[in-house]
């Protein structure tokens, strides 16, 4: 099965296409979605096993030799991300059954999700910079569909911002690829890495590094390119928000990580310092936002920023602990953000508002939800033994090893702000005098709880079971730190 690494991309794609034929049959769509995602998950897991066993998997599409055709590369980093993406999507899809509403389901909600996953997984897997652009476009246009689906007033307004920003970033992405092509004459990422190393990364390549950082930074939401994000992400319904928050920004982070560990590794003092400074500023910006709002969605959205800052800080350190931490934290953040968004979705469903000031005393009526939220919140803040801890520990360790004392302490303090922001949700929404609630359907509530609980449980397991996961993370970090292994696997030298 040399095509194994393609399956997590192709299967969702196939099912997305098939779903187009069942536009009106919502039930069939749901079933097919679950089948498709489950099949992809199986493929993704076997891919992880395969990578663990045999090292980096590559596939040159169309049997063309490496730099000429498009190469798909699955190292542990991308395999892990692909798998977590699929897992989160599965639960979000199940969550959607009871929360998104049939109208949306009939208008290509599930195909759009599957298309988006195709794009996300493709971006994670591809070994070709232009192909990455294409996958970015796939996931973007699918996300455009999702963000605007339903055409509510606020959605439309925010979609314009979202789309505008992304169109611009795509344009810049394309021209940056063009610049890169002009200099190194190739599109294959391994080949680019090799050639940049050969020519010793002249200044112009560093410029391109910065450009790429900006391009991907728009998607990842780093400072000062994140401004569009809080408003736009808050517009669509919660399941979509969960997917965006958990996955889309991570694609940007992945791209930055990949390029900054494969291409621009010959002038670390310059490129990675910029990355580090921006990462720290992102954390600060995220902290400000996370404290500034009394809106559930906003608080969690700003927490995405903080997480991204933390991850990129880990990446910028370029040492083992930092990288392991970044990889670990990245996957943690995908899981926990997905879970948190689903939880606040339930809270919004129950209370009918996302304004914290209008909530209160939910613990009395919805105790399990409260405890679930608290666990997720502590996980987010990196309280051990939950999932956020080990990643942060490693990043902190890497930071100190790197001698970056100030930045590392900012990272530590950011945890406190994260905790404050989410505990505030807990205190306002779950504690306090209960407010009168609209009667809601208990059954829907239960149906929404089911995937949420599993996702939280997974994140807890991810934290507690670090020892099982760690070898994989370690492998991923290893490849990231040693670009030659990636290059060799692709170019088969």
């Amino acid at each position, binding site marked *: 099965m040399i095509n194994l690494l393609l399956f997590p991309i192709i299967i969702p794609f196939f099912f997305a296409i098939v779903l187009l034929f069942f536009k009106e049959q919502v039930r069939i769509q749901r079933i097919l979605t679950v089948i498709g995602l489950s099949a992809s998950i199986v493929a993704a897991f076997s891919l992880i096993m395969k990578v663990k066993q045999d090292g980096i998997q590559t596939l040159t599409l169309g049997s063309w030799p490496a730099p000429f055709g498009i190469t798909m590369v699955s190292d542990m980093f991308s395999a892990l991300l692909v798998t977590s993406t699929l897992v989160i999507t599965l639960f979000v899809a199940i969550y959607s059954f009871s929360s998104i509403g049939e109208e949306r389901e009939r208008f290509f909600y599930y195909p759009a999700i599957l298309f988006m996953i195709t794009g996300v997984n493709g971006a994670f897997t591809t070994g070709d910079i*232009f192909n990455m652009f*294409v996958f970015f*476009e796939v996931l973007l*246009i699918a996300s*455009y569909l999702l963000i*605007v689906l339903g*055409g509510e*007033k*606020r959605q*439309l*307004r*925010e*979609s*314009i911002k979202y*789309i*505008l920003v992304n*169109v*611009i970033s*795509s*344009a810049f992405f*394309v*021209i940056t*690829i*063009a*610049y890169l*092509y*002009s200099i190194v004459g190739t*599109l294959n990422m391994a080949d680019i890495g090799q050639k940049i190393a050969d020519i010793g990364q002249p200044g112009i390549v560093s410029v391109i590094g910065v450009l790429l950082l900006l391009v991907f930074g728009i998607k990842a939401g780093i400072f000062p390119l994140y401004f569009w994000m*809080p*408003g736009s992400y*808050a517009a669509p319904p919660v399941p979509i928000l969960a997917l965006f928050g958990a996955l889309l920004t991570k694609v940007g982070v992945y791209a930055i990580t990949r390029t900054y560990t494969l291409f621009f590794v010959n002038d670390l003092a310059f490129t990675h310092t910029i990355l580090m400074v921006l990462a720290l500023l992102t954390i600060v910006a995220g902290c400000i936002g996370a404290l*500034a*709002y*009394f*809106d559930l*969605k*906003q608080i969690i959205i700003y927490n995405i920023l903080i997480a991204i800052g933390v991850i990129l800080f880990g990446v910028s350190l370029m040492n083992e602990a930092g990288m392991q931490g970044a990889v670990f934290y990245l996957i943690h953040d995908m899981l926990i953000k997905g879970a948190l968004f689903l939880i606040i979705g339930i809270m919004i469903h129950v209370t009918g508002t996302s*304004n914290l*000031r209008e909530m209160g005393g939910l613990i009395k009526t919805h105790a399990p939800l409260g405890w679930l939220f608290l666990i997720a919140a502590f996980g987010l803040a990196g309280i051990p033994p939950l999932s956020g801890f080990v990643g942060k520990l490693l990043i902190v360790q890497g930071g100190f090893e790197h001698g970056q004392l100030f930045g590392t302490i900012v990272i530590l303090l950011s945890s406190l702000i994260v905790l404050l922001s989410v505990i505030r949700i807990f205190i306002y929404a779950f504690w306090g005098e209960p407010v009168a609630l609209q009667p809601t359907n208990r059954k829907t509530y239960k149906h929404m709880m089911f995937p949420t609980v599993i996702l939280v449980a997974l994140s807890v397991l991810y934290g507690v079971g670090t020892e099982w996961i760690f070898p994989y993370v370690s492998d991923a970090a290893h490849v990231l730190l040693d670009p030659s292994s990636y290059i060799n696997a692709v170019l088969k030298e």
Partner: protein
Amino acid sequence: MELLMAIVAGILFTAAIYLILSRSLIKVILGTGLLSHGAHLFILTMGGLGGSAPPVLIDGVTEFADPLPQALILTAIVISFGVTAFILVLAYRTYAVHKTDDLNSMKGNDEHD
């Protein structure tokens, strides 16, 4: 030639961004149109403009223009077509719902309670 083309593409970019920054939704869309033109020209330019024949095999011709950027542009063109169509519809739907095409009146910072 590349010098000239880079400047032309740069001007397209400048104009596009100027339009995108304006308040009228329609102008913004026009801007995105120009933006993609500029981007495509950039790709073409960066591939080198010195090709002496189209990259199609024909007897007796051995020097071609670089085909790869062309293929990339083709992909990019189609993608921007899809996106443009989408934005257009989005724009008029927004106009229909918001009753204005003034981006300044679509502030939406209501989260700042």
